[in-house]
């Protein structure tokens, strides 16, 4: 991120500045289309929208603290079979990290994409966001107070509302691996947004948009403060989880209300299998098998294989889990999936010193091996 530029904010209107910037990217031909969160006409929901008409950017809202879908899935839909147009995609931190993983899984391409990150203080559940927007009679972007607090590395949700559990323990408020980042944490948003850019695109932006280079000196300290606070929350949450689930009985109890609807699989950006084994004939058992299982244990929960589903999904994807928490948001039974999968994922990733989304160059732990490792297996 070697090119830093100042994006001027007038009258403290951060959203207008960002809309203006995105509009210029289109108008100046740096991109020919933009994937950007847009406010729905009902103003109570925000959807990722592929925009060609710059006029539509009047309702763009990359700051809106809500995430309908992890956009890595949308970018995968757009680019999985290749992409030939210059498209800018506006992504939150966890969405970019998931996209990096999907690229490594050959489910998305970064060809001709300009990835545009935006700092994130957290997101509300969809219904909470809708409720808040209706209360405010406007889209519920971050308030002036929230942005001011963000300058000092503090996060305060709106009164009476909480960010999603996954966001409360997220130590990545700043997107990594993006071409351009629209930074407001640690930045005086009364007057500016900081644009952090990779060299090549940065030069283009400076020239074509006539921006001045600059920096936000207080940023590093504010970001470090926020990250430290989140890491503390995270470690406490992980510890609570490990205390709760510590034997077979507590493990089974943890998933007692799981109905195996597979919403988590659908919502998860990493679960990309077009044909998940759990949706195949492998799990359409003949009656004899059910009866055999009931015979063996005296009884058999129906439908079957609920804990098997959770543990299998965990084994298959947790090495790439970026902690976006969409699984938990999608779960009709309110299972604390974000916490469970992140907590377990952390130690699994540590086995390989791997951080999902950190780098395209780092191989997926499950897609590679070393000749000499894990000598404990004889």
């Amino acid at each position, binding site marked *: 991120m070697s090119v830093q530029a100042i994006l001027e904010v007038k009258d403290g209107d951060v959203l207008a500045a960002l809309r203006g910037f995105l509009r210029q990217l289109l108008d100046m031909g740096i991109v020919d289309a933009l994937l950007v969160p847009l406010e729905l006409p009902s103003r109570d929901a925000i959807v990722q929208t592929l925009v060609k008409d710059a006029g539509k950017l009047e309702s763009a809202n990359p700051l809106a603290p809500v995430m309908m879908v992890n956009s890595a899935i949308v970018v995968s839909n757009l680019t999985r079979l290749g992409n030939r147009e210059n498209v800018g995609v506006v992504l939150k931190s966890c969405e970019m990290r998931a996209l990096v993983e999907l690229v490594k899984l050959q489910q998305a391409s970064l060809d001709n994409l300009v990835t545009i990150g935006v700092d994130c203080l957290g997101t509300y559940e969809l219904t909470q966001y809708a409720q808040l927007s209706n209360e405010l009679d406007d889209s519920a972007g971050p308030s002036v107070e929230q942005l001011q607090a963000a300058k000092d590395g503090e996060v305060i949700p709106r009164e009476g509302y909480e960010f999603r559990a996954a966001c409360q323990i997220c130590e990545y408020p700043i997107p990594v691996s993006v071409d351009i980042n629209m930074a407001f944490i640690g930045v005086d948003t009364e007057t500016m947004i900081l644009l952090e850019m990779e060299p090549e695109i940065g030069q283009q932006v400076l020239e074509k948009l006539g921006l001045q280079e600059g920096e936000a000196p207080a940023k590093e300290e504010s970001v470090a403060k926020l990250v430290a606070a989140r890491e503390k929350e995270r470690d406490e949450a992980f510890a609570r989880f490990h205390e709760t689930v510590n034997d077979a009985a507590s493990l089974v109890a943890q998933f007692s209300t799981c109905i195996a609807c597979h919403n988590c699989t659908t919502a998860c950006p990493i679960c990309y299998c077009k044909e998940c084994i759990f949706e195949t004939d492998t799990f359409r058992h003949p009656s004899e098998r059910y009866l055999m299982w009931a015979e063996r244990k005296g009884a058999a929960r129906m439908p079957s294989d609920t804990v*098997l589903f959770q543990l299998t999904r965990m084994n298959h994807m947790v090495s790439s889990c970026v902690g976006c928490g969409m699984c938990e948001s999608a779960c009709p039974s309110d299972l604390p999936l974000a916490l469970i999968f992140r907590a377990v994922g952390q130690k699994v990733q540590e086995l390989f010193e791997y951080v999902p989304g950190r780098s395209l160059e780092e191989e997926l732990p499950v897609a590679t091996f070393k*000749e000499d490792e894990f000598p404990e297996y004889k």
Partner: protein
Amino acid sequence: MDDFEPRIVAFLCNWCAYTGADLAGTSRLQYPPNVRAIRVMCTGGVDPIYVIKALLEGADGVLIGGCHPGDCHYQSGNLKARRRVAILRSILEQLGLDPDRVWLRWISASEGKLFADTIKEMVEELREKGPNPMREAWAI
């Protein structure tokens, strides 16, 4: 507890471990009858789902037997298996299940005795541990 006979499910690769087990048999080596062998072409083809299913059904131990690293019939299947087992055992441990009920051992086609000894060792250790608590878990 004295009459507890551990039940072991073993995923054995065709080229090495299964053949080694076969050699144990043809050599008339005695080993405990507690193991149910499942022949796979390569340990690289052992998806963690098979191992988890066995454990959730109540298997007291699961053995994955493959070729020694460097000798895999398919070059690197066993090396992938090694990573998958490492991940699986980490997950089991974190969730309060006993990772030492899942064993990964390298047993070549000529190591009939090693196979027999491995089974003896596994049965003894599992007898100490006692039955898999999942034997009673029907609400899964």
